[in-house]
């Protein structure tokens, strides 16, 4: 049974993190997920949250209202967007006065938010909605011998009170998916550490320190690589790895891939289609089949 979702791309994925989008569009249709591109989606507002909460609420509510207009559930691959939209929904449901105010603002575009939207991220879409069994069915080239670590990031796990795709203290869904792909997920003490992205704008050195420290720890534990599920985390670990290495005075050489990229490789899709050459980190070290 095909599942339909409005794809909410956010800002970072379509402008910089193309590999994520490429791998999503290659793999999900195989799992009978139809992604609808909706006109009018804008920024979710999360980057402004610390400066103007009303703006963030308005922007998120606007996107929810657009999805409502099209009667679609939302698939949100970016963890920051996922938190913004979920939190906005939580606030509006609990605070009728705010809901009214926001709807007043949305009225200018003939939009309205009245019903809760079902919002999923890559993790729960794959693990809960599609299911491990179905993923296993499609594995043609199991990733045997791949000792890889999962990075969940923060926005996808907290705050737990509003409901997040995985447990905030001991998340295991990415590991379950990796096992289904035949890989060997490795547990490590720094698993729940942040990538540093939210600090990038105001405290870039602190941001890169966090990125560098985590990569350094992974490197020291002889783990082959890192898997992530958010364009911001990937931007830090993959895109800023060299700079992070300079910040923590370490030579970093850790392959970083999107979960959906690994999914594609296991499904037998070519590396080019999955955007693997767009990764700035040395993914060739993983010696993935189909990759150069």
């Amino acid at each position, binding site marked *: 049974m095909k599942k339909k979702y409005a794809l909410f791309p956010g800002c970072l994925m379509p402008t910089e993190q193309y590999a994520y989008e490429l791998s999503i569009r290659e793999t999900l249709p195989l799992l009978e997920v139809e992604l609808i591109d909706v006109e009018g989606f804008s920024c979710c507002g999360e980057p402004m949250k610390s400066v103007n909460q009303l703006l963030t609420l308005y922007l998120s509510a606007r996107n929810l209202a657009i999805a409502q207009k099209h009667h679609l559930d939302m698939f949100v691959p970016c963890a920051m967007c996922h938190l913004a939209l979920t939190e906005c929904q939580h606030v509006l449901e609990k605070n009728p006065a705010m809901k009214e105010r926001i709807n007043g603002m949305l009225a200018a575009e003939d939009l309205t938010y009245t019903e809760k939207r079902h919002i999923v991220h890559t993790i729960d879409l794959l693990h809960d909605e599609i299911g491990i069994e179905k993923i296993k069915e499609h594995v043609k080239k199991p990733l045997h011998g791949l000792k890889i670590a999962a990075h969940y990031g923060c926005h996808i796990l907290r705050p737990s009170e509003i409901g997040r795709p995985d447990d905030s*203290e*001991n998340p295991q869904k990415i590991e379950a998916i990796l096992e289904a792909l035949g890989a060997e997920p490795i547990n490590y*003490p*720094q698993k*729940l550490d942040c990538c540093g992205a939210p600090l990038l704008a105001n405290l870039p050195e602190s941001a890169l320190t966090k990125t560098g420290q985590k990569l350094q720890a992974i490197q020291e534990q002889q783990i082959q690589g890192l898997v992530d599920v958010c364009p911001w985390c990937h931007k830090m670990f993959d895109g800023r790895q060299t700079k992070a290495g300079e910040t923590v005075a370490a030579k970093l050489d850790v392959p970083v891939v999107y979960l959906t990229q690994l999914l594609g490789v296991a499904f037998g899709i070519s590396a080019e289609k999955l955007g693997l050459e767009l990764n700035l980190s040395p993914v060739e070290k993983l010696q993935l089949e189909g990759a150069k």
Partner: protein
Amino acid sequence: MRRIGVFICHCGINIAQNVDVKALTDYASHLNGVVVAKEYKYMCSDVGATLIKDTIKEFKLDGVVIASCSPRMHEHTFRRVANDGGVNPYRVEISNIREQCSWAHSNKEQATEKAKYLVRSAVSKALSLEPLKPSKLKVIPEALVIGGGIAGIQTSLDLADDGFKVHLVERDPSVGGHMAQLDKTFPTLDCSSCILTPKMMEVANHDNIELLSYSEITSIEGSIGNYTVKIRKKPRYVDVDKCTGCGDCATACRLKDRIVSEFNQGMGKRGAAYMPFPQAVPLKYVIDAKKCLFLTKGKCGEEPLCKKACAQDAINFNQKEEIVERKVGAIVVATGYDIMDPTIVYEYGYDTSPDVITTLEMERLISSSGPTKGEILRPSNQQKPKSVTFILCIGSRDETQCTWCCRIGCMTALKQVYLLREKLGEDVEINVCYNDLRSFGKGYEEFYRKVRGLHTNMFRGRPSEVRTMKENLKIDIFDTTTNKLFEIKTDMVVLVPAMMPRTDATEFARLLHLTLSGDGFFLEAHPKLRPVDTFVNGIFIAGCCQAPKDIQDTVSQASAAASRAATILSQEELEIDPLIAMVDEDACTGCGICVEVCPYEARTLNERKRIAEVNDALCAGCGGCIAACPSNASIHKNFTKKQLLNMVDDIM
């Protein structure tokens, strides 16, 4: 011709402010059946009581109406006062013109009108009240104490010293409970065993105490003054009359040191034949039926080594469980507590590192009779730790786990800091991460200051996780007293877990019809006025099964429960409240619905007569059967439908 007296209370200004009591009194005095109406400021006081008594005598009253606060406050008092004056105590009707009138309304005129209706209906009820007589029940002067920890032990000794026979039931092979697992007790640092074992010995040897160890309660029937208790004595597979406690069987046991020891909180091992701890009372061995090879598989090598080793021939694999019955007049429940399993709070690393332990486990390490003979060694490598960190409130005061404070956590941690410092000297760094330091009791503050002075690093904050690194453990903590973020690298972490009700508390409560409070502990009848009573007459609670507390408060409560139980046991007869259900035998069809509905098991069906019967001692007057009876045969004495409908008519 009935002669009713109406007494209107001002309740200070609680009633008088919103109800015109003079007008009300005047109105009442003209009601049908009322010969006199009086008003006074505090009817519940000595003066008010005397007023009622004197008025009864002067006007030869045969019924009394009190218009005052809720009957929940003083109904019992007013009944006694009326009785003293010569009126049957059940011909007293209380009209609540405070909570249901004065306190609920602000318009004085309307409130007074309402009060008039209320009093009028109360008078009409008073006119129809029957002069009931309480029935009497003989009291068995023996007590049942459930639980052989320090609470149960203290209660048993107090009652036994009072001269009553006590049956003490303990489900473990030995009495002593959690206190026996402790090394020292705060704040005096008395050796726990030293102060406990004399009491344990006394309990075993007291003429008035029957100790039923390794036994469980299977059923309790009856009511206050007359309970019938069935107890299952579990088989030890050791003849206690022959066993001398020498220990040869345990030394010989094929499974020696292969089974996790519960007493040592999983830090040590025992065999299938074992003594729970060296000072156990009774000092008799027991064979673990779930692990013993002979009992589970039918054979143990060539032959069971324990049987071979025992010089007294005390091993008896043919022992069976035995159900015994005892009759008692009062019951005290002292079943104690369990600690929370920290596995639930994954982030503190209890599951991921062997060096993360609970305070109870640390207590066993400290104890010289423990698995390491009192040496403090890291479970991971059996080396002395160079740094130990205590984290308080694991699971306590936590919205997602136990919302309550465990009360003993702070003092336990401080005590262990002191003992560690004593054992390891200055070679160990000791850190304490706390929320609030609660050192509330006598001598506690002094103890806290002493421990602070022992080079203890005190951090006020809550670490979000204990990270298991290769060689040690890492903790990040933000200290709110210095506003600094600290990183602690430590060899051992001791978690102070929440104190919880026993895992089977809910099931056990059902056996005795006990109520549980929201947190799962047994509910006391009133936290201030009746802290050891329960809602079931004749059953009392003491110790941590009621709420977390330290040993001092446990012992006080245990003595209090004994005192309360003694007030029942020292009487030859008890009066039973007559405000209960009765059966109209002519109307009863014997359908049996009331029997199913009764939560107190007070209803039975007389098969021969095919009508229902009420056990006066058990009936609590809840009214369930009254509502359920399809034939109007179930009647609540002095609360009949006719009486209540008359009251409604009067109000309308």
